């Protein structure tokens, strides 16, 4: 039960981070592309920017924490999938999410 409570807290905390990250993310997109931007122009602005690198690394981390915990409830309640095998599958899912997310972050901001 302590584990369940920790998961709940982690999901709440990551949701708070995500709420902020998504807002900043969307606002930045809308603001940056007002006049039209090419892929090369975007990369010229983002690559090597440490602040944005840190921001999107946090974003990916929050997704990695948040999504598997939510999926955990869906799998348990809709498919009746609980126990060790579900935990393993979700760890795998989290690692895939983190890897894909950080691959994009490294590509755009590193």
């Amino acid at each position, binding site marked *: 039960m302590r584990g*369940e*409570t920790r998961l709940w807290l982690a999901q709440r905390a990551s949701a708070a981070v995500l709420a902020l990250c998504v807002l900043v993310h969307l606002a930045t997109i809308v603001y940056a592309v007002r006049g039209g931007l090419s892929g090369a122009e975007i990369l010229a602005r983002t690559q090597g920017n440490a602040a944005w690198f840190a921001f999107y690394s946090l974003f990916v981390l929050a997704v990695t924490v948040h999504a598997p915990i939510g999926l955990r409830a869906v799998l348990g*309640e809709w498919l009746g999938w609980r126990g060790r095998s579900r935990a393993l599958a979700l760890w795998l899912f989290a690692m895939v999410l983190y890897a894909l997310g950080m691959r994009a972050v490294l590509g755009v901001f590193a």
Partner: protein
Amino acid sequence: MKVRVKRGEAFQQFEVPREPSQTVLDVVTHIQRHLDPTLAYRYACRVGMCGSCAMTVNGAPRWTCRTHVDKVVRNDELTVAPLRNLPVIRDLVTDMRGFFDKWARARGQFQGARTRSEDFARVAPQSEKRGFADAAIECIGCAVCYSACDVVAWNPDYLGPAALNRAWTLANDERDTQQAARLRAVAGDAGCHACHTHLSCTERCPKALSPTAGIAGLKRAVAAAALRGEL
């Protein structure tokens, strides 16, 4: 009016005369007394106190003794079935043992520290905790909320709105001595954190209570205890 009553897997149809101020319980009683004496259903007080007559009426769980036919009848038709999320014993009668066992599992028993030779505990009527307890205390244990809850349907171990509502009243009872043990009992996969805040219990509660608000309170209390390392 046409009344369809669920009996086992099938529905049986009856023709019941409409009366002024007729309740759904009156309808079921009419069927049992005049049309088919083998129909099984449960009731006791008939005035909304005992919590024994809840059934599924036109798809929604309701206390039948206080539900007027006028309010729920559609096209002169009524469908009556047993409560959802509970095993059916026969016809409209459900086995409520699992429901009440969960109250016990949620530490729904009051346990104080005083003996009968001591003075009464004095609880400030205006205190915040007393307000929370007052708001949740009028539960009659009818299982309407339990039947309305989707999380109970998906996770049969889930304690459910009524048991958690009871735990919340005691969590706000300053005389009770089992606070930490109760928070441990309502944490976990089967406890308050499983609630998705669908509000079906609050929507359906015949006493207009909000188990959802109590469960949210328990989530906060359990999380705070976990952060303090007391869980």
